[in-house]
Structures are given as structure tokens and as C-alpha cells.
């Protein structure tokens, strides 16, 4: 039997990769993808807990469904905004988005 | 021990599929040929039975060209990505009451999920070629496929509501139980399914991504030799898979009069679908792209939703 910790470790690694990407990547599409990665690490956690956690029950899987959906919705909105941004600025480089600074 | 059986099953199925594709291509050319009052391929072997094999041999010996401008890694990966899912789908198809591979409880979902990966292969192929025709073809193809995937998926929900299971065998057993093929209660879903399936398969009249007259050869313009062959293979394997799914969902799978074994009924029904695809190709002209997109979103999706609503109400009404 695979211990739940392994899945959690996978989740943690994914989360960290995602966070690292968000913090370091300049291409905004990749940043959005990295956010998806972070959300998916959550899904791994939830599914792991839901099937082999200390209190395994179905709720975690239900939660995952919602997370997937909302992640998709967020990605959709994010991409739509990205398109608008690209049309305005001709660039989706995170560093160049600097109109708003104090 | 189990593993050996599994591998054996997979290998046999692979062999069968390769054979099936080989003759499906021949079948297509013959059918279209006769419909257009010409004999079709008839030089290699009796009635041209060896034609496709010759074609394959030719492709095998063609020079393998990867354009300098291409993104090499993605270019190499693309045909594989396109082929693997279309083959992996077959793991879960139940050919008859006793002949089946993975008896997944989420069979239908697995089918839908895995099959949509093929799209990725198409996109990768088109993009990595670094060719304008390829890219446009790929983008168009993807747009079409994903547009029609929704009505396809939605149309299946009607069946799922009635059966209450996603397992292929359960679906067939249910049809056995009510003594009726689901094509009758789910006729609307069947229509939607058929039309979206054609678009999913990029087949005529919805074969815009490969429109030779506009886009040379669509997303696989730059592919040659066996790489090209795998795109074609994936396409035909996928066509068979869609037919198998339709058979299971709407035509009662292996059910049929007892004088033939279940698997034969299954294959016959599949062939019927295959024939239908080829028939359409011979008959209908290519649709215009705006008609195509509009049709999917404005007609099929509302119809599919309507079907779901009706089915759900009936289901709950009947208890």
C-alpha cells in the first residue's frame, strides 16, 4: 500500500514548482499555467486524502471537482484578459507590465 | 500471470486494429469508387486487396524528413501523441459479454478523456512544423474538434442518465434489460452524436482541417513517411473507436439474435457505422467553415441540452 505521505510529497513538489514558476517566469501564459499547477497539487492532496487518508471519504473527490471547475473558470478569465492585454500592449511579458507603479 | 493475458490481449487487439485499419482504408476507397461508378483500387492482389499494404510499405521506405525550421522535439512527439490515445481507448471497449479488456466503472468518461488528447497531437504537429498551412490547419482542426466535442459529450449524458452507469457493459446490459436499443429512446442524442462524431473525426463533410484545396494537406503537410502514416493510423483507429462507442451506446453493443455470437454482431454494427462515414464522404460536399462552427454551437449543443433535460425529467418521473 502506498502511504499517503508520498502523494502529499508529490503535491508539495508540484505546489512549489508552480509557485516558483509564478514568481520567476516572465511569460504570463506560463505564469497562468503555473497557477494551474498549484491548483492541481491541491487536487492531488485532496484525492490522496480522500482515498487513503486517515479519514478517507468521498468529500475530497467532490471538492476536487469544484477545484477543477473553478481552476478552469479562472484560466478562462485569465486568458481572456491576457488577450485583451496583448491587444493593448503587444506584449505579455510580465516585466513590461509596469504602467502601475508608484 | 494476469499480466501476460493482458499483454496478449493488447497485442492481439493491436494486430487486429492494424488489419482493420488496412482494410478499412481499402473498404473506403472501394465504397467511394463504386459509388462514383469506378472500380477503385484493383491492381494489387485480387480486388486490390493488397493495395493498402503496398501503400504502407511505400511509406515505410520513404525518406524521413524533418524540416530545419521545425521544432524538432515536438515534431517527433506529435504523431505518437496523436496515435497513443486513440489506441488506448480500446482498452475499455467491451466486444461482447465476455470479451473485454479493462472493465472500468468510468468507461465512458475514460473514452472521452483519453480521446481528446489526440487533439493535442494535432496541435503539436501543426505548430512544430513551422509551416503556415500546417498551423492554420491545426488550429482550424482543433477549433472544430473542440467545438464538436461538447455536443458529443453532452449527447452521451442522455444515455448515462437512463443507465445510471458509465460502464460499457452496464450500458449494454441495461439495453438487454429494457429490451430496446437506446437508439429509440435516445434518438435525438443519437443524431447529435452522429453529426458531432463526423466532425470529431475530421471527416467529410467536416474535413476542413485537411482541405486540400485550401491548406495543402492541413496539419500534416510537413510530415512524411511513417510519421505521416501514424497520423493517418490514428485517424482511422479513432474512427473505429467512435463507431464502437456508438455501437455500445445506441445499438445495443453485442446484442442481437442468437444465431450469431455477440462479437460478430458488435463488429457488424461497427462496420455499419464505418460504411456510413464513407458513404457521407462520397455524397456530401465540404461544409463552409462558418456554417460548421455555427452549426455545432447553435444547433447541436442546444439540442443536446434539450435531450438531457427531457431525459432527466422522464427518468425522475418514471422513478
Amino acid at each position, binding site marked *: 500500500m502506498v502511504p*499517503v505521505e508520498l502523494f*502529499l510529497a508529490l*503535491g508539495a513538489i508540484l*505546489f512549489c514548482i*508552480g*509557485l516558483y514558476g*509564478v514568481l520567476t517566469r516572465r511569460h*504570463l501564459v506560463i*505564469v*497562468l499555467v503555473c*497557477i494551474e499547477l*498549484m*491548483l492541481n*497539487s*491541491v487536487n492531488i*492532496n*485532496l484525492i*490522496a*486524502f480522500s482515498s487513503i*487518508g*486517515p*479519514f*478517507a*471519504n468521498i*468529500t*475530497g473527490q*467532490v*471538492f476536487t471537482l*469544484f*477545484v477543477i471547475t*473553478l481552476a478552469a*473558470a*479562472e484560466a478562462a*478569465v*485569465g486568458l*481572456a*484578459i*491576457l488577450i*485583451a*492585454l496583448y491587444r*493593448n*500592449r503587444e506584449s505579455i511579458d510580465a516585466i513590461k*507590465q509596469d*504602467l*502601475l*507603479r*508608484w | 500471470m494476469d499480466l501476460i493475458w493482458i499483454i496478449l490481449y493488447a497485442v492481439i487487439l493491436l494486430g487486429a486494429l492494424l488489419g482493420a485499419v488496412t482494410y478499412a482504408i481499402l473498404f473506403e476507397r472501394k465504397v467511394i469508387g463504386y459509388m462514383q461508378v469506378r472500380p477503385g483500387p484493383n491492381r494489387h492482389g485480387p480486388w486490390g486487396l493488397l493495395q493498402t499494404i503496398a501503400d504502407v510499405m511505400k511509406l515505410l521506405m520513404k525518406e524521413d524528413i524533418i524540416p530545419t525550421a521545425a521544432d524538432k522535439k515536438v515534431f517527433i512527439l506529435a504523431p505518437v501523441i496523436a496515435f497513443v490515445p486513440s489506441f488506448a481507448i480500446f482498452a475499455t471497449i467491451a466486444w461482447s459479454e465476455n470479451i473485454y479488456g479493462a472493465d472500468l466503472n468510468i468507461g465512458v468518461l475514460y473514452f472521452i478523456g483519453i480521446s481528446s488528447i489526440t487533439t493535442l497531437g494535432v496541435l503539436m504537429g501543426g505548430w512544430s512544423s513551422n509551416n503556415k498551412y500546417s498551423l492554420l490547419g491545426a488550429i482550424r482542426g482543433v477549433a472544430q474538434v473542440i467545438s464538436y466535442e461538447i455536443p458529443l459529450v453532452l449527447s452521451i449524458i442522455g444515455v448515462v442518465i437512463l443507465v445510471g452507469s458509465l460502464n460499457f457493459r452496464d450500458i449494454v446490459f441495461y439495453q438487454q434489460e429494457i429490451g430496446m436499443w437506446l437508439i429509440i429512446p435516445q434518438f435525438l442524442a443519437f443524431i447529435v452524436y452522429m453529426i458531432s462524431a463526423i466532425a470529431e473525426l475530421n471527416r467529410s463533410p467536416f474535413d476542413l482541417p485537411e482541405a486540400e484545396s485550401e491548406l495543402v494537406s492541413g496539419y500534416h503537410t510537413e510530415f512524411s513517411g511513417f510519421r505521416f502514416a501514424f497520423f493517418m493510423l490514428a485517424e482511422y483507429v479513432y474512427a473505429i473507436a467512435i463507431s464502437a462507442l456508438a455501437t455500445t451506446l445506441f445499438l445495443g453493443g453485442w446484442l442481437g439474435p442468437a444465431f450469431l455470437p455477440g462479437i460478430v454482431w458488435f463488429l457488424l454494427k461497427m462496420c455499419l457505422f464505418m460504411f456510413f462515414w464513407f458513404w457521407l464522404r462520397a455524397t456530401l460536399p465540404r461544409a463552409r467553415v462558418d456554417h460548421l462552427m455555427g452549426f455545432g454551437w447553435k444547433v447541436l449543443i442546444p439540442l443536446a441540452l434539450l435531450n438531457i433535460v427531457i431525459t432527466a425529467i422522464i427518468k425522475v418521473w418514471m422513478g
Partner: protein
Amino acid sequence: MSAFDANWSLMTPEIVLLCLALLIFTIDFMTGIKGSKPFLGRLSIISLLITAILVVLTNNVSGNIAQVFIVDKFAMIFKLIILVGVAFVITISMHYLEKNSDVYQGEFYSLLLFATLGAMIMVSSADLITLFVGLELLSISSYCLAGFKKRNKKSTEAAIKYVILGGVASAFILYGMSFLYGLTGTTGILEIGRDLGALYDQYPFIIMMSLLFMLVGFGFKISIVPFHMWAPDVYEGSPTPVTAFLSVVSKLAAFGLVLRMFIIAFGSIFDEWSFLLAIFAALTMIIGNFIALTQKNVKRLMAYSGIAQAGYLVVPLATTLTPDITMSIIAFYGIAYVMMTLGAFAVITLVTESAGKEDISSFNGLYYRSPFMAIAMTVFLVSLAGLPITAGFFGKVYIFIGAVTGGMIWLAVIMIATSIVSFFYYFGIIKQMYMNEPNENDEVLNPPLSLSVMVTVAVTVTLFLGFFPGLVTKYFNSFHWFF
């Protein structure tokens, strides 16, 4: 009790609002996407009022739907605050949209209503899933709203920043929640709260980590330092009514979430996080107020001001008080905050839209151009600064006394000290209004009637609560806030 035999009538306000929002949405696209549609604005306000009435009517008794959706006094008050806030925001929007015809009006209103719905679900939820769905409904609508001027570079940039940081925040919250679920095997906040105390002895590290992750995520949503970086950028770039919405409704709703989460779910390990929150509150007040000093863009200034205000709101949560008293304090300040901030935003919208720029100098000589608006703005700013006799003052006094009662005198002192710092920038605007001459081309302002009415209401409430805070607080103190 399962969802099947639950008392769904508890959800009446939400369902009605959903229907009305969808109705407005439908009317909008059936009447053509473009064009001026003030009637939709009016309809939205009416919808909100209907919902508000329903909220009051259905809250006679506390209850819940399958331990997922709770109706209690906490939910009621927060919903009322949210609804009134959104009604104000829509009033502001109606003026704004008249000036900015490139915005799709109907969509704007319906998105605002959907966001409101999300906010209402958030404050009523007693389950991590419901809570998250509400939060995302609000957030995603807000992302769209922030980028609503899609031809405007600043607006889209604000939106993309908001999406990215909002997404990261959501991921943090969810990651924290996943552990909470894993350890307790449930997503119900009440059950988590019941089990957590015992579990903490077993897994202190994991629970603390989960809490920290959620704190980071929620910190983003309510923009407390050090998770505030997005707020100024987003506030500056967004259309002004959206800025108002974000800084008031969105923030308060997220705050409601934080309260429910921390008081109910994490209540049993209060000692572990209260000090951390206190430090965050202190940092928020200090940094928010000090950076605000340097701002020249009025929306940016309001953003930092809002950050500082969020710091004040965190203070009662970080102090040892009974939940009921904490809630009375926060609710009172919440009301005051809605009134003064939205009132200020109404005036800001009026002024910046007339001037065509968002620099503080657009307030020059407002007193000559519209004495009423200038006086109203003065009241709001004085209230925000926390001077008597305004709602903001009593709100702060209330928080302050709460903090002292709870034994956090140092926090209370920081609060007062940073309030003094805030005098500089709030009175800076007042200075512009009264002591500078109007700019060259500025004409007399003629605010539309609806905006004047709204500002009047806000001023009245701000002053009234300053004179007679007892009326409201007495009412609040009689509550049993949580289900």
C-alpha cells in the same frame, strides 16, 4: 440532515438574487449589448433592495442547510452590509458608465450582481467547498470587472495582475484547506472547529502549516501587509466604481470569510495564531498609512488607505475577546467603512471623471465647484481619519477599547499612532478641496440626483453613527452572532 430534506427556504435571498441577476443579464443581451442602459442600473438597485428585505425576513431564525449553508446573525449583518454597499457601488457606476460609453453596461451590472451573490454565499457558508465556490464566484467576477475597460491599458494590466495574484491566493487557500480536510475528514467548518482542538495536540505542525497557507491566501484577499502588493496596482487600474467595489464589498466579504474561518474553525487554537495576526495587523496599519503619504493618484491613495483600514479590522480578531464582542466591533466598523469609503468613492468618481485624470490635484478647489460634495467628502475623510464625531471615530474607539480589553495595548497604540499619520494624506485631500484654487478648465460640478442622494445617505449615516453609535451597538450586542 441531508440536502434532501433541508430547509431550502433559508436560501431564498440568494436564489432570488440569482434569478434577478440572470433576469438582468438576459434583458441586457436581449436588448442589444451596447448602448446606455440606466434602467438596468435601477433594476439592479431594486433587486438588491428586494434581496436585502428578504435577508431580513428569512433571518428571524438561525438555521442551516445540511451544515453547508448557514443562516445566522453574522451572515445577516454581513449580507446587509454587502447589499447596501453594492447598491451604492451601482449608483456610482451609473454615473461612471454615463461618462464611459465604451463599457458594456448590462454586463457590468450583472457581473456586479454575480459578484454580490458570491459574497453572500461566502459569508453564509459553513463548508470549505461552499466557501470556496462563493469566494471564486466573487473573485472571478471581480477579475472581469477590473479589466472592464478592455481598451484601456491600465485596466487590462490591473486585471491580469489581479488574476495572477488572486489565483495564487486561491491556490494557497486551497492548499491549506486540503490538509484541513485530510486531517479531519470533513469539510464542514463546524465539525472542523469541533475536532481541531484535539487534533492540534496530535499534528501541531501540519495544522499550523495549513493555517499559515490559508492565512497567506486570505491575506491576499483582504490585502493585509505583506500580501497587499496587488491592491494599489489593481485599484489604480480598475474603473473607479470597481475600485470602490473591490475596496469595500470584496474586502468585507473576504473578511467575513476570514472571521468565520478563524473564529469557528480555528477558534480552539486561538492562542497559536492571535499573535501572528496581531503582527500582521500592526504591519498593515503602519505600512498602509506610511506609503499612502507618498501617493499622488487618488485611487492609489485610497488603496493604501484601504489597506490600512483592513489593518484596523484585523485588530479585534487578534485580541482575546468573546466572538460576540469581536463581531459587534467588526460589524460596526464594517458599516462605518462602507459608508465612508463608498461615499468618498462617489465623490472621487464624480471628480476624476469630470477632470479626466486621477491625480489628487483634480480635487483642487472642489469647494468652489460643488460645496455640497466638498463638505460630504470632508465628512468622509474625517471619518476615515478617525476624528470625531463620525462613525469612523466611534468604530476606531470601539476597536481600540476592544484591543485594550483584550490585552493588546501595544497594538492599540500603533493603531492610534498610525491614525495620526493618516491625518496627513486625508487632510491633504481636504487641503486640495478648500485651500487651492480650482484648475483652469474645471467647471461647476452638477452631480446627478442619484449620486447626490447616495452621498447624502452616506453622510447622514456616517454622522448619525458618530452621534448615536449606541443605537446600533446595543442592537448588535443583543446578538448571538454565530450559529
